[in-house]
């Protein structure tokens, strides 16, 4: 079960804001989900991990190719200038 404090911390990590009403509903749903997810905590299982290995010969040749241009990369930014993202001043 998560507390209001923990929820606040998670929201900060997630960069999300919740009103008080939303928060109460979210905490209720969230605890319901955690309860469901917690089934695995006590499962007896051998510790293992599966990591797919990539054979070295499968890597492509290291040849420089034209990718997206700087203008293309920032083309979807809400604010941009000279190929850079624009954000409000950070230093006062």
């Amino acid at each position, binding site marked *: 079960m*998560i507390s209001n404090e923990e929820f606040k911390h*998670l*929201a900060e*990590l*997630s*960069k*999300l*804001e*919740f009103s008080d009403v939303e928060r109460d509903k*979210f905490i209720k*749903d*969230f605890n*319901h*989900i*955690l309860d*469901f*997810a*917690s*089934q*695995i*905590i006590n*499962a007896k*299982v*051998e*510790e*293992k*991990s*599966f990591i*797919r290995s*990539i054979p070295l010969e*499968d*890597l*492509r040749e290291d040849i420089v190719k034209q990718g*997206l241009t700087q203008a*293309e*990369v*920032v*083309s*979807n*930014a*809400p*604010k941009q200038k000279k190929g850079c*993202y624009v*954000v*409000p001043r*950070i230093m006062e």
Partner: protein
Amino acid sequence: MIELGVIDTRDKILSGEISSEQITREYIKRIENSDTNAVIEIFSDAIEQAKAIDIRIKEGFKGALAGVPIIIKDNILVKGKHASAGSLILKDYIAEYTSTVAQKLIDAGAVIIARANMDEFAMGGSTETSYYGKTLNPRDKTRVPGGSSGGSAAAVAEDLCCAALGTDTGGSIRQPSAYCGCVGIKPTYGRVSRFGVIAFASSLDQVGPITKNVKDNALLLQVLSGEDSNDETAEKRAVEDYSKYFNQDIRGMKIGVISYVDDIVKGLDVEKNYNDFKEFLKANGAEIVNVDIKNLDLVLPVYYIIAPAEATSNLARFDGVKYTRRATDAKNLEEIYLKSRTEGFGDEVKRRIMLGNYVLSSGYFDAYYNKARSLQANLREEFLKAFKSCDILIMPTAKGEAYKLGEKSNPVDAYKEDIFTVSANIVGVPAMSIPFGVGKNGLPIGMQIIAPHFEEGRLYRLADFVERRAK
């Protein structure tokens, strides 16, 4: 009515009976007249694409999908076109490049006519969480089409295109295919490139075709498959000609039935169809083998830990700086992040971001995330072991017919609907949903068939047989 699939349409176009332009215009008219909200946008250049293909065909072009109108899910990029993953936060995003799967369709001669509705960022099983509103199931408009590729499956079922592409992270191709009466495959993880597909959970996502019949499905998967220098997870393996698996019998095929699945199917609406399916296979010479998969009862929690953990990381990039939408009243950088994300994401996406951050945060990482990864590795071994005694595993795709719109408002109830589909993603194996009979309301029911890694051919052999022989 044009109720033709991919191969029939292509053959009619190549023989000159109809032009790609004619059939594309017909489909556009249908989309415009449809009230299911399966399609978000008809691409403005669809007719031009068709005209260009018609010219190439006159010059001798004979691509596998020559002139065939296809719809793609809203999370697949085509340069210069909108793709929003069903989310407000990407509403105005225009792709800067084309995904490998879309490029393969284009190279094979397909006409990409529209983008289909979906659950926001593919998180959901009903297509009710889209920013663009709900999609209705064309077979019963009071019901969900399934999801997250609900728009794609509904469009195929309603005959708004010859076929559609979906993506599947925990059942998002198979379950809507089952609910809409289509054939849908989630290929082996690594069979199809994910380059240019808006990511949900990168280690589980796969693109796959949703079609009107099995042979179309095989052809499309063949077109989509293969290695990709832009996606190292797309494996270097020969692409098979799946047509060699058609028109065979299933005599001697070993069909694995999982005891845990048999237990949970009892009492569900799908029980009769599932038992009929087993009888059908047996009557046609297949051998039913009972297998056990240890810890299969934990696969849903494993999925709902691993998928949100990956989603949290993948969705961190949507911050109001790089992609299209920024909150207008943000005063500083921190507020840009907070307000843009808070406004831009829907509730289900927020829940999963929060859950992902929870299981990845220190103090919980070992108990949840690492434990889930261990269980995933163990489940993978269990499936490999099961496949030593059978060729294909079967289970239902969903618990029954499509449910009513708005019926699953509790998140955990909705998550539990994925019980039959998530294991194929967790383990990485290919799985297909094929129509098999109807439920008590006369709506389609899907059966799921699962093969070992890269053995899609086995699925097509069985699916083709079922399609030809089952009533």
